[in-house]
């Protein structure tokens, strides 16, 4: 195996630590950067540095924020009293794109995974429960992923929230629009059948 100069090796090592990037991809990206225009690469470096320096987490909802609160929490037009709970900041973006939700969010920064040893204590669960009273929250929408970890998280939160007298709803899980029925797994198809709706005719 070829030995790279220390600066190149360091770049490959750092890129290889990123999620989803294996040693081969790290090499490919490193050599792409070395070949690219200097000004383009420095713009990337600057974007990383500036994001890291200016962006932190919202003190209220743990979404990404450039300041003490994120843009959504700081927006007075958002309805108080309804919180949509998601796992990651990118899920906020996904729900926002629907344009169907007008309340505020709470980002757990992960999901419960019993086997991996990730429990409520490792997530922003306490922070969610502490918002209920001061924000007079009436409904919490559990918008965690429709997978094993997301469901464990939703069940745990539902129990905690019920005990505190808050209305809890869970997003419906069903078939992906645009997919073929024959590819749906039994669990998904079973739930979609239970969640059927009348059709106007």
């Amino acid at each position, binding site marked *: 195996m070829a030995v790279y100069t220390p600066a190149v090796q360091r770049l490959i090592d750092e890129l290889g630590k990123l*999620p*989803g990037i*294996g040693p081969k991809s790290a090499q490919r990206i490193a050599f792409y950067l070395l070949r690219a225009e200097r000004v383009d690469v420095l713009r990337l470096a600057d974007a990383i540095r500036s994001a890291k320096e200016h962006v932190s987490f919202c003190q209220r909802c743990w979404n990404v924020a450039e300041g003490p609160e994120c843009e959504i929490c700081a927006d007075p037009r958002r309805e108080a009293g309804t919180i949509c709970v998601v796992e990651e900041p990118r899920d906020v973006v996904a729900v926002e794109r629907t344009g169907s939700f007008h309340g505020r969010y709470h980002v757990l920064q992960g999901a*419960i995974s*019993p*086997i*991996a*040893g*990730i*429990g*409520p*204590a490792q997530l922003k669960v306490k922070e969610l429960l502490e918002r209920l009273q001061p924000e007079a929250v009436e409904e919490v929408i559990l918008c965690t992923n429709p*997978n*094993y970890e997301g*469901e*464990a998280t939703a*069940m*745990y939160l539902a*129990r905690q929230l019920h005990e505190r007298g808050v209305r809890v709803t869970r997003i419906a899980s069903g078939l*992906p629009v*645009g*997919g073929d029925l024959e*590819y*749906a*797994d*039994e*669990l*998904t198809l*079973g739930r979609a059948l239970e969640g059927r709706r009348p059709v106007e005719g």
Partner: protein
Amino acid sequence: MGLYRARGVVVRTYRLGEADRIVHLVTDARGKVRAVAKGVRRTKSRFGARLEPGSHVSLLCWEGRELDVVNQAEVLDSFRGLREDLERMRAAAVMLEAADLLSQERHEDPDAYRMLVGALRTLEAGGSALVAPAFLWKLLAADGVAPALETCASCGSTGPLVAFDPVDAGVRCRACRRGIPVSAEALALLRAFGSGGLGAALAGEAQPAWGEVERLATQAMEAHLERRLRSVHVLDG
């Protein structure tokens, strides 16, 4: 190298890259299988929820040098009831974690596979809080390391036996006691795990000794594995 078929239970999953997942399965024909499920995290994946922890599937896989690749997966039991109740999900997670840690790759162990499927079915069919401890105990017995329960591990006396010592995997009499105190009721339940008297114990009403038995089985398993079972405590809060 080549294509093979197996039946197995998904015991552990790890995210891999953007949309893939590494799955560990305890199988009938191949012991533990570690395989990549490509694209499984995409909403339109053909695998859907088939390769999530606790799923019992029939698989078609490519054998690889390090990791195999899942080609097809069909559901035998989705064990939906274990995903929709927090207590059962926790009990199932304890069993999956122990099965993952104890099983070995390329080491055929159809009994471990059958025991796991059987225990998950019992749990889903309304099984009690005794299912997971009984499963842990039977796994230890299958490995030949279940603690001896008939005589004192130190002096050989037949009783009364009042303590359980997970380190030297045995019970102890009053004179030699060391470790955790154990009640006569808990000792009777542990003996039932080894003698096939489990059905009667499972059908009975919940008793204080059940919590004790859960702690004892967990500690015996943790002593054998030389590590903690994470899923036992993670939901405590």
